[in-house]
């Protein structure tokens, strides 16, 4: 039997935007075991509940991640609103849905660019990020920020978007969709992309479910679970079905993200058509007393926030379980038996966000 060798992978690696370390045990070129470890950027953000009051914690929540910052804020606010039984105005729910779907589009296109880069397809990477700029411009116009938006608040949102601006955004997204389509076709049909991603990083439907995979990793293995179906924000009034692919490999996870970009554009169109007029926030008095597990669908998958209030301004606990954390166990499974050269691509297809994971 060939000798077992341990290859350290990360925390710094060209394919990793953020630091995670894996000890990759190989025999010849085959991976026999992968052991991940975290903690290089652990910030202890959850502990800030002792110092920040429950309104200010929304800003901390948004700073967990620079890609899905909006949804972190939204999840936090929704949890507090559930504990305090706050009725959020419908317009605020629709605005949250629109910003959340814009976040999904920009996250997925960012990831597709990174995937192209990992496959050595530099022009595809650059074009992907060029298209993504349009979404960032919409964020800048509607919130004032391109990374951290600060528009969520307990009880609603801080900024409205005028109806004519919303219609213009739909027009911009149509243009973006037209620009994205040729790129999407490359991800779907190009020989080199298919060759690099197909039959790599296999995760069966049963393993994906049992190991707690979430998001495109789960849906790329043929499991139709999407936390948006819980019906939070305006999702219960929108028509959509989870995007599912059945080939269980890196290619399936890529295609799920490509198709979800189109789905998000459609959801935004539906939301703009249905958004009611009215107030955008509800005055909140008192302090949260109770607990709630708030679940949402981030671009990377289901995120869970546990919040426990004690009737004072400071929460007892704010705990975040991010999608990447949940996808670590499935990642370990995917890496077993793969070629060493496929490890970077496989890690990339869970769309790892380590800042989120470590909080």
């Amino acid at each position, binding site marked *: 039997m060939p000798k077992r060798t341990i290859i350290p992978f990360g925390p710094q690696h060209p394919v990793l935007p953020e630091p995670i*370390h894996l000890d990759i045990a190989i025999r010849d070129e085959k991976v026999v075991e992968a052991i991940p470890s*975290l903690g290089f950027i652990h910030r202890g953000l959850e*502990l800030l509940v002792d110092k920040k009051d429950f309104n200010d914690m929304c800003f901390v929540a948004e700073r967990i991640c620079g890609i899905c910052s909006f949804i972190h804020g939204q999840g936090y606010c929704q949890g507090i609103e559930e504990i305090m039984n706050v009725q959020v105005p419908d317009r605020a729910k629709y605005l949250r849905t629109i910003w959340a779907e814009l976040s999904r589009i920009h996250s997925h296109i960012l990831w597709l660019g990174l995937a192209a880069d990992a496959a050595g397809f530099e022009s595809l990477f650059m074009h992907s990020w060029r298209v993504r700029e349009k979404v960032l411009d919409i964020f800048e116009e509607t919130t004032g920020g391109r990374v951290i938006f600060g528009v969520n608040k307990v009880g609603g949102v801080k900024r409205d978007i005028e109806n004519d601006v919303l219609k213009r955004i739909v027009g911009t997204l149509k243009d973006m969709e037209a620009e994205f389509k040729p790129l999407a076709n490359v991800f779907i049909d190009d020989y080199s992309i298919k060759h690099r991603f197909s039959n790599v990083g296999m995760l069966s439907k049963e393993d994906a*479910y049992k190991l707690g995979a979430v998001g495109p990793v789960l849906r790329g293995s043929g499991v139709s*679970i999407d936390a948006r179906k819980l019906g939070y924000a305006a999702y219960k009034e929108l028509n959509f079905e989870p995007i599912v692919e059945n080939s269980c490999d890196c290619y399936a996870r890529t295609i799920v993200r490509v198709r979800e970009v189109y789905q998000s554009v459609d959801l935004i169109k539906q939301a703009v058509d249905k958004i009611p007029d009215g107030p955008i926030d509800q005055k909140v008095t008192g302090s949260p007393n109770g607990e709630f*597990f708030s679940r949402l669908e981030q671009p990377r998958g289901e995120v869970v926030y546990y919040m426990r209030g004690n009737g004072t301004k400071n929460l007892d606990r704010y*705990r975040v379980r991010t999608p990447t954390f949940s996808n670590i166990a499935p990642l370990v499974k995917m890496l077993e038996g793969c070629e060493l050269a496929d490890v970077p691509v496989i890690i990339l297809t869970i769309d790892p966000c380590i800042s989120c994971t470590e909080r």
Partner: protein
Amino acid sequence: MIEKQETVTIASQDELLKKVAEMSSSGYRLVLISCTKLNHFQVDYSFDKNYEFRNFRFCVPVEKPEMKSISSVFTNAFTYENEIHDLFGIEVHGLNINYGGKFYRINIKAPFSTLKKAVAVAATEEGKK
């Protein structure tokens, strides 16, 4: 209300393991294990099936912070349980993958188990070194 959430408090570890096995055989997936420091450690085991959320709660005494792993039933529990060990200092017995305190490579031992002031002092001392 976005969704109905049921929390059941479990008195003993053995009963908890039985519940966890029931969840597994009924086709539930493990959504998260969460720990909260109160007068005791409150450990929550949350499951989901067809968007139905169920939560089981178990209390670990501060004086003897120990609990049994459920990783023999739910393999992915190892990430949550190693995290609880590293951040809260609870000893977890029977882990399928035990990092021995190295899952999170952080300088402060069990930062979530102590009061904020103590953590700040420890961080300052670490900085001085």
